[in-house]
């Protein structure tokens, strides 16, 4: 039975039959109740017959023995016990009642058997309807329970009790049922074939035909009620074997019985001899059995063919499945390998990173992992040392900072670029830049900490230097300004005294004295010039940058007008057109153009007419081919060119230096500050100025002013 089940599972072809199996078995269980019910009704009717005095079921054929009322009562008990046991709503009370009924039947039948064996009549089967039974006993046989009836009841009641003892004992229970069934069958066949030996030899009192039929019905019912246990399972699984057996069982029971009965009828009517009868019986039986065997072989073949087809289909499916599994396994292995290498990469990054990384559980404040940089940064001996002994209190300069961090972290889920002071284990303080990310699911914070102390120190010292420089510069500027300013007053007085001398005392002086007086005037004027230029130079830096949109055409035109006298005197030509409109500090730019024109006029070539051309263009830095320009910024490139005496190109840089002069004071008066002022102005505008001189040809100034506004 177990083997069969296993086989079913291995084959797989039996799998769909399992469903039909339970359906079929349920059908059997339902039908079992009808068999038992039929017996119950008949038995109750027999009891009723005895009470009213009619004999229908108790003695269907008058010449045969009747059913004893005790037998009928036993049937009622056994049937009721069966229903109590198989009731769907089983309860302890029902089970107890059923057991009680079975035991009653068992005791009654045991007493009967004992009385039969010992020949002591306890008259147990005459308790009910005694008078009627006595009346009846005048016939050829006493109305008593047959010995085999008692045996059958013992079998049935034992079977029922065993049935109730659990699954394991149901096999035995079914076997007992089958035994009762066979016993009853013997009597049925005996009655059918009119075999006298059944009455005389096998028992003193034969089993009545109703009793035998009832036994057949009730034991069949019991067997069907328990289709999945014992040998019954073989008939009820719904597998090919069961299907065949179902047919063959009926054929095996009915064929010999029916054919035998027909043959017997022929013999009784003396149509043929008993030998021929037996021959006919055997022949017809063989024929019918062959037909059924042929038929069932067909069914089996069909089922087997289906099974084999299903098996081969399954095999193909299995093979495909195996292929898929193999493919998937390969893929998984590859993914695993990739994962492994990416995990390794992550590990390498984690360990070789230049920043401290660690993860901590916010709830328990425990450190889960840390890299070597982290261990070193906080001053621990090892990772284990870090993980076991990390205490936030010893690393935060202000422990409240940590609380604030945690609140922010819980609110936003992360902290970015947070800079704060932290401590190493030995107490030394460093500047830490924090990046923390919180995983809300498990409350684990991943922290990255960068030691930016050196950056901060560098920045601080740089800021300090800048401040120092600024104050030194300021001092210089103010010194420059104050000294220039304060120098003016005595100079003005000197000039005034000289003027008074010249106006009132000149005639009293010798010629030499007069010459000295003139030289004194010139020197004083020169000093005045120097002071003025220095003042202008120092003011160039101190003025606030108020940029306004200036049309250079207009500005140059105005400057030229200021120089009108000198230009006419020198018969100079100044050409300009289509100049840019740019954001500049107006008065400074006026100074710039003014200084350049003043220079051109001063250094005009004595042999030719002075020509100055001013032009401009807008171009991005990358197209201007000049160092120091920013490639992506647009510049206004102003070209200023004259045809004066020029200078050697080796002085291209030096001309912009303060007090730098290329010519003697006698020939060309000047302070050497003019171009330095020009350079300062251009630089104030974030621009670049270059000069390229050529002796006796002239000079070209290139000025680049960024068009983009800088604040």
């Amino acid at each position: 039975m177990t083997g069969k089940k296993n086989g079913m599972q291995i084959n797989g072809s039996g799998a769909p039959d399992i469903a039909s199996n339970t359906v079929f078995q349920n059908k059997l269980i339902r039908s079992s109740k009808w068999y038992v019910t039929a017996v119950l009704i008949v038995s109750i009717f027999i009891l009723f017959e005895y009470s009213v005095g009619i004999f229908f079921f108790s003695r269907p054929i008058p010449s045969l023995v009747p059913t004893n009322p005790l037998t009928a009562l036993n049937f009622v008990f056994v049937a009721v016990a069966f229903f109590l046991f198989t009731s769907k709503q089983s309860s302890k009370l029902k089970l107890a009642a059923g057991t009680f009924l079975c035991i009653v039947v068992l005791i009654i039948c045991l007493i009967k058997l004992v009385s039969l064996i010992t020949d002591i009549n306890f008259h147990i089967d005459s308790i009910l309807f005694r008078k009627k039974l006595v009346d009846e006993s005048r016939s050829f046989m006493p109305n008593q329970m047959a010995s085999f009836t008692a045996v059958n009841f013992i079998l049935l009641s034992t079977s029922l009790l065993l049935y109730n003892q659990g699954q394991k004992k149901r096999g035995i229970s079914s076997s007992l049922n089958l035994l009762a069934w066979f016993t009853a069958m013997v009597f049925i066949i005996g009655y059918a074939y009119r075999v006298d030996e059944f009455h005389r030899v096998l028992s003193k009192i034969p089993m009545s035909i109703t009793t035998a039929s009832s036994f057949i019905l009730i034991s069949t019912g019991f067997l069907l009620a328990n289709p999945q246990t014992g040998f019954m399972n073989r008939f009820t699984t719904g597998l090919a074997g069961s299907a065949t057996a179902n047919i063959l069982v009926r054929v095996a029971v009915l064929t010999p019985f029916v054919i035998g009965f027909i043959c017997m009828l022929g013999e009784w009517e003396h149509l043929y001899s008993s030998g021929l009868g037996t021959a006919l019986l055997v022949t017809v039986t063989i024929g019918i059995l062959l037909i059924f065997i042929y038929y069932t072989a067909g069914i089996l073949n069909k089922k087997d063919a289906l099974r084999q087809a299903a098996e081969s289909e399954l095999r193909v499916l299995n093979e495909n499945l195996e292929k898929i599994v193999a493919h998937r396994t390969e893929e998984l292995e590859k993914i695993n390998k990739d994962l492994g290498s990416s995990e390794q990469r992550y590990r390498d990054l984690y360990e070789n990173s230049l920043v401290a990384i660690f993860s901590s559980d916010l709830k328990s404040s425990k450190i889960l992992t840390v890299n070597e940089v982290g261990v070193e940064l906080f001053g621990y001996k090892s990772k284990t040392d870090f993980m076991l002994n990390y205490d936030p209190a010893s690393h935060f300069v202000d422990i409240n900072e940590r609380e604030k961090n945690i609140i922010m972290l819980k609110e936003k889920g992360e902290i970015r670029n947070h800079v704060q002071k932290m401590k190493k284990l030995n107490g030394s303080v460093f500047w830490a830049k924090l990046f923390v990310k919180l995983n809300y699911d498990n409350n684990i914070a991943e922290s990255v900490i960068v030691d930016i102390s050196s950056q901060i120190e560098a920045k601080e010292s740089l800021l300090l230097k800048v401040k120092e420089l600024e104050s030194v510069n300021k001092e210089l500027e103010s010194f420059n300004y104050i000294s220039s300013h304060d120098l003016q007053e005595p100079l003005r007085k000197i000039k005034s005294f000289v003027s008074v001398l010249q106006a009132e005392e000149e005639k009293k002086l010798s010629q030499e004295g007069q010459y000295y007086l003139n030289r004194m005037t010139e020197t004083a004027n020169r000093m005045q010039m120097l002071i003025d230029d220095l003042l202008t130079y120092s003011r160039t830096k101190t003025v606030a940058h108020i940029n306004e949109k200036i049309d250079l055409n207009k500005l140059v035109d105005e400057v030229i007008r200021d120089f009108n006298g000198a230009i006419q005197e020198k018969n100079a030509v100044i050409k300009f057109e289509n100049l840019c409109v740019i954001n500049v500090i107006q008065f400074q730019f006026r100074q710039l153009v003014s200084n350049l024109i003043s220079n051109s006029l001063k250094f005009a070539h004595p042999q030719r007419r002075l020509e100055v051309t001013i032009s401009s263009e807008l171009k991005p830095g990358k197209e201007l081919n000049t160092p120091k320009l920013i490639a992506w910024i647009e510049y206004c490139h102003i070209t200023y060119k004259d045809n004066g005496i020029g200078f050697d190109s080796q002085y291209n840089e030096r001309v912009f230096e303060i007090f730098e002069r290329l010519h003697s004071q006698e020939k060309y008066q000047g302070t050497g500050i003019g171009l330095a002022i020009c350079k300062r102005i251009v630089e104030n505008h974030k621009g670049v100025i270059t000069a390229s001189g050529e002796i006796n040809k002239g000079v070209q100034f290139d000025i680049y002013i960024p068009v983009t506004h800088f604040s």
Partner: protein
Amino acid sequence: MEKQFHILLADDDMDDRMFFKMALKKVSVPTDLTTVEDGERLIQFLNQNQNNLPDVIFLDLNMPRKNGNECLLIIKQDKNLSHIPIVIYSTSLHDDVADELYKNGAHYYLQKPNVVDLPGFIERVVTLLKNTAERPSREAFIVNRVVV
């Protein structure tokens, strides 16, 4: 005879006082000059000569004890003195300082020029003041700028 125009000069610089005196000799308008050496003495002088107040005060800015601007404020807040026109007379000239002085009630700003140019400027200022007691506009406030 024409009444002399009474000028009061407050300047701590001896040379400048001398230049002023020299220049006045060349001014065609008849003038009478009184000089004081600092702001303190200026206020003292004005308080002691309530009946003989000057027609104009030339006021230097950079003086010890009380500078020009302080004197200007005191004079302009004193109802007995506030009518006297005041000409700022200084070596330096800064626009923001000039703005402040104009706001405080000064009439003119004369930047100390070379002595040869001084008589002309004094004559111009005195003539203007003689013609009208009203203050000029801000544009006319600055009489000269010393350029080289």
